[in-house]
């Protein structure tokens, strides 16, 4: 059973999180590093270029990479301090084994591998191949993502592989596929520069993608009007021309009303709609009753402001619409995305300079990692695992019979549910911390404890991995060569700066070794990351995400290549749809009818307040990296409950008073931060913290029926002040809360 060997405090004392601070003594070696490595930040989907300085096999600092075209040296605090994850005392440097009553004890690779293989074989022979599942993550490079897809299907022979992009990109991906037949931001961000109107919805750009701010500000310098849709006055909204402070979960109502307004006032591009799209009439019909008054009632945003926004958008000649998890983390995430795409298609402003649309990819390789078979229903090149043609092609590339290729498996949260039900008995996870990042974390914990055998691969012992039976020390971002695909669809090179320390190995070596021992060595005889990439190129050829024409050399020469790039002499595609040939079966862009539905956990008398979640600029996702970097932790030390003064007064809540927040899943305590920058009916808590400080104890496991993304953004809650005023300070130990 995958339970903690000893109480978590003991594990924390040994494996962290502990904080890494730079030495006060100036580092003499920075002046004369052994290597200056041009690579990218390991965090968000912007994948900013950065140079790492390495000395004696340690990353000792960074230098801005001024030439990289997206960020030209610009970074956010996470990027500046990313080098502090290297040379960290918490780093796993040997395989460790969960020994009840003792803790995690180091063992040899040989012993670890023997144990792993025999348990995989035991579980699979006893309960069937699919009873062993795999969860992965998209901080991994394209090469590793591809290899893991292949590993799960051909070595582990399970259908149940899914990834943490399930919490990130799947709603946008499904929406884009429905509408365009292809899942990628339509434009690179340079197209923001001269857009007349920009809509940013459900994207706290300045905290989650800080370096993207530059391009939005640049547009505004050129006179662009900015419309921000968010329940909070986020930094971008403060100076926006229009801020639509809608109620969480009412995005499709807003965009439905805007579409209706555009149609009624003839602000649509008839030619574009007639020639290049289908489904307009159905979409029009779906929103015909969505008046501004109705929208005001549903969304809570003033109808005058909605009208102003609709006019700006309707009349613009160039524009860009950006969205992120704010509209996607819903049981109607895909619908929300489609409602955005509808107003873009109605405007006809796509596939032209400065006319853009795109979701902002959250994770480092959230784009590339969702294209090459990492998902339960997908094969490389963004192929469909249930499409016979696609199966045939990939089976050929992999050298297997099509019948051997498993079918569609369960999605991430469904895997947890299946474990909870006792249907899945084994798990191997890499680069995923579901105990912090999935909703309803107490339920997730119960599930993990039911596993018969749990193998983890990671560089730090994350909160989830404390449940593992065996943990293998994998590699950091800067310890392996590879490529990632940025939020713009630009494939860039990740370069190795140092070797894994001591007894740690690269993720690739580990996966190859397990594959070999499972008897699939012939399919995993790669000698380098480039080798894997070259197979990926072939596997993706002919798919929508076609990488065939991309090589390491080409990427290095051009500082990135935008896919699709089907031929070696193809320059790549920074802007999609210039040819108006969409990748849907009929070659047209599809309008989709979107009706507004309420969220799955609506407010009522018992739970009268909307709880929504999100991020802060100094932390990244489940925090297993950023909660170990001292200065980032100090910047925002513990999750606060943002609440409007009127709502606070209603509940008698004072500044810095601890408040019990309760939902149907459970309760948690957070200090109140009373601010006027949030709706009066909504409270906000960021989610990067574990244990008792995790807001995901409260969020629900309701999933979008299409994308299977959990509804993080809307939960009904009640508030109860405790009467205890606390000092919120940067020396809080919340980063390691258990």
């Amino acid at each position, binding site marked *: 059973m995958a339970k903690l060997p000893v109480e978590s405090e003991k594990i924390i004392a040994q494996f962290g999180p502990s904080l890494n601070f730079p030495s*006060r*003594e*100036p580092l*003499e070696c*920075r002046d004369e590093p052994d290597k200056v490595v041009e690579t990218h930040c390991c965090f968000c989907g912007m994948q900013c270029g950065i140079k790492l300085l390495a000395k004696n096999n340690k990353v000792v600092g960074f230098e801005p990479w001024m030439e990289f075209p997206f960020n030209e040296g610009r970074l956010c605090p996470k990027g500046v301090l990313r080098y502090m994850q290297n040379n960290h005392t918490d780093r796993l440097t040997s395989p460790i084994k969960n020994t009840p009553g003792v803790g995690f004890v180091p063992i040899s690779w040989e012993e670890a591998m023997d144990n792993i293989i025999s348990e995989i074989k035991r579980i699979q022979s006893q309960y069937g191949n699919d009873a062993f599942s795999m969860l992965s993550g998209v901080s991994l490079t394209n090469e590793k993502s591809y290899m893991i897809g292949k590993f799960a299907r051909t070595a582990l022979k399970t259908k149940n592989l899914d990834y943490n992009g399930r919490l990130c990109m799947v709603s946008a991906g499904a929406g884009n596929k429905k509408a365009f037949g292809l899942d990628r931001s339509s434009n690179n961000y340079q197209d923001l520069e001269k857009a007349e109107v920009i809509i940013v919805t459900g994207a706290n750009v300045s905290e989650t993608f800080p370096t993207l701010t530059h391009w939005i*500000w640049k547009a*505004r*310098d*050129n006179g662009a009007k900015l419309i921000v849709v968010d329940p909070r006055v986020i930094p971008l909204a403060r100076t926006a021309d229009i801020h639509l402070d809608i109620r969480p979960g009412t995005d499709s109502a807003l965009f439905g009303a805007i579409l209706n307004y555009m149609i009624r006032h003839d602000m649509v591009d008839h030619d574009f709609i007639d020639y290049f799209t289908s489904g307009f009439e159905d979409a029009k019909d779906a929103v015909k009753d969505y008046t501004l008054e109705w929208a005001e009632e549903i969304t809570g945003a003033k109808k005058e402001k909605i009208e102003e926004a609709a006019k700006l958008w309707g009349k613009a000649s160039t524009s860009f619409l950006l969205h992120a998890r704010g509209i996607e983390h819903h049981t109607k995430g895909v619908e929300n995305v489609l409602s955005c795409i509808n107003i873009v298609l109605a405007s006809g402003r796509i596939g032209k300079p400065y006319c853009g649309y795109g979701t902002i990819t959250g994770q480092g390789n959230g784009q590339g990692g969702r294209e090459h078979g990492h998902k339960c229903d997908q094969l490389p090149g963004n192929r469909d695992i249930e499409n016979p043609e696609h199966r045939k092609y990939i089976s050929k590339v992999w050298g297997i019979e099509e019948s051997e290729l498993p079918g569609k498996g369960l999605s991430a949260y469904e895997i947890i549910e299946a474990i909870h039900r006792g249907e899945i008995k084994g798990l191997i996870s890499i680069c995923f911390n579901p105990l912090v990042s999935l909703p309803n974390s107490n339920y997730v914990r119960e599930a993990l404890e039911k596993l018969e055998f749990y193998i983890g691969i990671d560089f730090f012992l994350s909160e989830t991995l404390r449940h593992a039976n065996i943990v293998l020390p994998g590699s950091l971002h800067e310890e392996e060569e590879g490529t990632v695909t940025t939020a713009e669809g630009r494939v860039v090179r990740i370069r190795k700066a140092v070797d894994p320390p001591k007894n740690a190995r690269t993720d690739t070596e580990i996966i190859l070794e397990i594959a070999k021992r499972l008897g699939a060595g012939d399919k995993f005889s790669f000698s380098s990351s480039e080798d894997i990439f070259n197979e990926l190129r072939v596997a993706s050829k002919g798919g929508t995400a076609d990488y065939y024409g991309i090589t390491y050399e080409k990427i290095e020469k051009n500082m990135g290549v935008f896919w699709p790039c089907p031929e070696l002499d193809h320059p790549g595609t920074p802007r999609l749809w210039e040819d108006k040939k969409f990748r849907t079966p009929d070659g047209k862009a599809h309008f989709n009818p979107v009706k507004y539905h309420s969220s799955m956990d609506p407010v009522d008398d018992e739970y009268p307040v909307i709880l929504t979640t999100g991020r802060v600029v100094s932390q990244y996702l489940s925090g297993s990296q950023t909660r170990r970097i001292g200065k980032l932790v100090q910047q925002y030390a513990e999750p606060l409950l943002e609440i409007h003064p009127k709502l606070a007064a209603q509940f008698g809540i004072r500044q810095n008073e601890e408040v019990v927040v309760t939902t149907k899943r459970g309760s948690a305590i957070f200090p109140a931060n009373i601010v006027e920058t949030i709706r009066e009916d909504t409270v906000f808590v960021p989610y990067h913290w574990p244990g008792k400080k995790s807001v995901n104890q409260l969020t629900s496991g309701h999933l979008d029926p299409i994308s299977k993304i959990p509804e993080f953004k809307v939960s009904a809650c009640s508030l109860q002040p405790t009467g205890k005023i606390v000092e919120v300070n940067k020396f809080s130990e919340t980063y390691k809360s258990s």
Partner: protein
Amino acid sequence: MKLFNTTAFFAALTATLITVTLVLLGSRNLQNYDAALVAYLFGTLFAIFGVVYRYSVWIQRPPTKVYLKSSIRTLFSKEFIQCSWFSLKDFVKNILFQSFIIKRSKKKGIAHLMMAFGCLMAFAITVPLTFGWIHFTLVPETGLYPNVENIYTIHFFGFEMSTFPINSFVGFMTFGALNWCSVLVIIGATYFLQKRLKDPGLISTQTFEADILPLLLLNLVSITGLGLSLNYKFMNGKAFEFMAVSHAFFVIVFLIWIPFGKFFHIIQRPAQIGAHIYKEIGKNTGMQVCKHTKKEYTTRLHVTDLKEITTELGFNLQNNAGDSLLEYSPEGKRDLLAIAHLQARQTSGTYFG
């Protein structure tokens, strides 16, 4: 600032004359004076003149005068007892053990401590010698026979103090003390020197005359001084003359340099205690609350005095309403600028472009 400061000149002259008088008294009208030290004496007198002159100029500047005034005021107030205990603690902590430097960096702190102790001890030994206040005589009878241990008598201001045999511990320490000082200074100064050659932060901001030269000088003084002893002991006095002259040269350059260069900080440093006392007694006047952040940020006394200092220096930070900018905390002042900037942008109708 005026080029010539009369008050400072007379203060410096007085200090120099007093020193000369004390030299005459201490050496019994030069009767006990070691003529070999006369060059050092002139160097020291020059240093005294320079230091007192600069110190007086310094103490007359508005911001410094505040400390002088407050110190004198404290001296005659009921807070005196509280302050003396506080200053004693502060002196031991920050001047003697220099804990504030050790907190900046352990290695740096220890190196500085070695350098400082080396220098201060050397001063304590050489100044009385140079002034002729102390001199040693050989007890004549012990000098007559080669197999009898030499015994020395120590004189202070012409009075016989005590005697000690040369091979005793006291003898070893007395005649070897300067060598030990040299060793301490060499280790400390060399540490700093190599740091200044390697640390990119220091390299970018240092200058030769302000930062490198003083360290070189300390090393040269110590090495030539140490050389004198070694020369005497191991080389039978060969090149002694050369060593003596070069040592004297570097020491005199060092002395003359004190009032002008980096070494003046040795004289200035005790003002730190003054600043601490000022902060302590300031608390008795209550804390100033920032008009914007509504948080306390310094003592009321500090704000009142700063208003006076800035006015005296020719800065008028009062607005028409009679409010002073000094009543805002640093954070409050940054916010004021941001608010003014926001207003300017809002009035223009656009934040960007």
